[in-house]
């Protein structure tokens, strides 16, 4: 029999998280701070709308771009948070999670050999999606001394005449870094000067703890060269509903929707009805969850200080990214030993790019009680090594 597998796919490294997941599952009594999704249930009024839509028999496809009503709500939401107007018909469409939008953006914009700038540590799917779209991923290593923010110089150092897209993954998973308006202004200058496009993954935009999130689309000249990606998973605790969206220039959206139409057809109908309710009446829920995340974030940072675990203060998402360099172990060794010896699972920084070496990702999408139990284990471990 011939080799059934294509070379492009084989060459892609499997996610580093997968490997660790398997070890954790075999460890009995392990507690985990390794989850990348909210611990809250989807607020009941949102779930109730989903159930109601099923009862009413709204079980058919929606239009390829998604429910008109939902696109209108997305447009309203961006208007009220960023002050930018997107045409709900031509410039907004609904995807199966933010991840689909990332994939589509690359596939719609890339010609083979184009370069995509990917800051790391960052979410695991940018690099493989770029490769699958025949792009050449070019990694920008974010630095702890910059609080893992992206600087204009770092972009300039990697730009070539083949560079087409800059991925902007902020607020960031796994570091928790956020980009302020001034930081973005520097980046925008370079993007315009070098004629690049931005794929801005703002899935954690509602989870910032030092002021409101600023999107790069709100800066002059950036709306026309940015694909804004967001979704419902993190803000409304709706990961399992698989729903996100992309906003951007009509000509790019058209091509993205074309791929989406052939590959996906449309995002889940039930989820779309629920999401309308989320955007219309979910602000209070988001506020409540953000407040609680913030308490946990402060608790962890305080504990790290007490335990002598160095960590810059992250102001976004629900992760902290402490440095373990002083213990003379690799991230992988540290996490494996922590799991074996104290049955506490955290994710090695290297799962998010080679430059995550020397760091671990700790998620605070857990109750305070859980975090306290976990910190007891971490304390025992740190005293021992």
């Amino acid at each position, binding site marked *: 029999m011939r080799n059934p597998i294509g070379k492009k796919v084989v060459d892609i490294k499997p996610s580093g998280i997968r490997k660790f*997941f398997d070890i954790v599952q075999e460890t009995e009594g392990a507690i985990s701070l390794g*989850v990348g999704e909210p611990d809250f249930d989807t607020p009941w009024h949102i779930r109730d709308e989903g159930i109601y839509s099923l009862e009413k028999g709204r079980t058919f496809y929606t239009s390829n771009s998604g429910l008109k009503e939902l696109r209108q709500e997305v447009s309203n939401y961006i208007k009220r948070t960023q002050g930018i107007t997107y045409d709900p018909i031509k410039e907004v469409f609904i995807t199966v999670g933010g991840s689909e939008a990332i994939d589509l953006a690359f596939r719609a914009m890339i010609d083979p050999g184009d370069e995509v700038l990917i800051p790391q540590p960052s979410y695991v799917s940018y690099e493989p999606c770029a490769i699958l779209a025949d792009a050449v991923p070019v990694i920008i290593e974010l630095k702890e001394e910059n609080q893992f923010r992206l600087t204009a110089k770092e972009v300039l150092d990697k730009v070539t005449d083949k560079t087409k897209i800059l991925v902007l993954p902020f607020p960031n998973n796994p570091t928790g870094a956020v980009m302020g308006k001034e930081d973005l202004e520097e980046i925008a200058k370079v993007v315009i000067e070098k004629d690049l496009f931005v794929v801005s993954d703002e899935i954690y935009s509602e989870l910032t703890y030092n002021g409101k999130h600023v999107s790069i689309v709100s800066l002059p000249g950036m709306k026309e060269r940015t694909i804004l990606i967001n979704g419902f998973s993190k803000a409304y605790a709706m990961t399992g509903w698989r729903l996100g969206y992309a906003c951007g220039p009509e000509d790019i959206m058209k091509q993205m929707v074309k791929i989406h139409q052939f590959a996906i057809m449309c995002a889940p109908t039930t989820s779309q009805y629920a999401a309308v309710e989320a955007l219309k009446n979910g602000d209070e829920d988001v506020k409540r969850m953000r407040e609680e995340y913030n308490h946990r974030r402060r608790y962890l940072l305080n504990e790290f200080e007490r335990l002598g675990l160095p960590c810059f203060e992250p102001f976004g998402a629900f992760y902290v990214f402490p440095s373990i360099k002083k213990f003379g172990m690799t991230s992988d060794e540290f996490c494996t030993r922590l799991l074996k010896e104290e049955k506490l699972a955290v994710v090695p920084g290297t799962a998010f790019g080679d430059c995550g070496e020397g760091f671990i990702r700790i998620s605070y999408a857990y109750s305070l009680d859980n975090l306290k139990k976990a910190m007891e284990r971490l304390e025992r471990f740190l005293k021992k090594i």
Partner: protein
Amino acid sequence: MNTREEILNIIEKNSRIDVHELSVLLGAEEILVAGELKALEEEGVICGYHTMIDWSKTNIEKVNALIEVKVTPTRGQGFDNIAERIYKYPEVTSVYLMSGGFDLMVILEGKSLLEVAGFVNNKLATLDNVLSTATHFILKKYKDHGTILAKKYEDTREIITP
């Protein structure tokens, strides 16, 4: 978010939290948080630090009843006078002035149906201003003070996700 509201949000859910931990969660100085707490107590915003108990899980019998009470308000006093006469009974746990079909909602805790019935017959219904009462016994508590009593939270997420 103002600190007062945030303090109240936290201690409403967890009154046993100590000042140190509270100050960590709020990212505020311990001394400020302690001062704010004291002020809230003195102003009567914080009225007590009680414990929520699901008595049905013990073998101690408790009966709860909601009683709708219609009363004649007194000149110059409105409902306050009669409300006071009712809330002074220790078996009465709550008294609310209501809009709608009746005037006072009285929540009562007793050891048995008989005891509750006795209170309504002998004490409540015989008060001069009370026109009528309608007693409803609570059969089962599903949720109380924002806490679901029926089941415990269970984390069903995958253990590690990107």
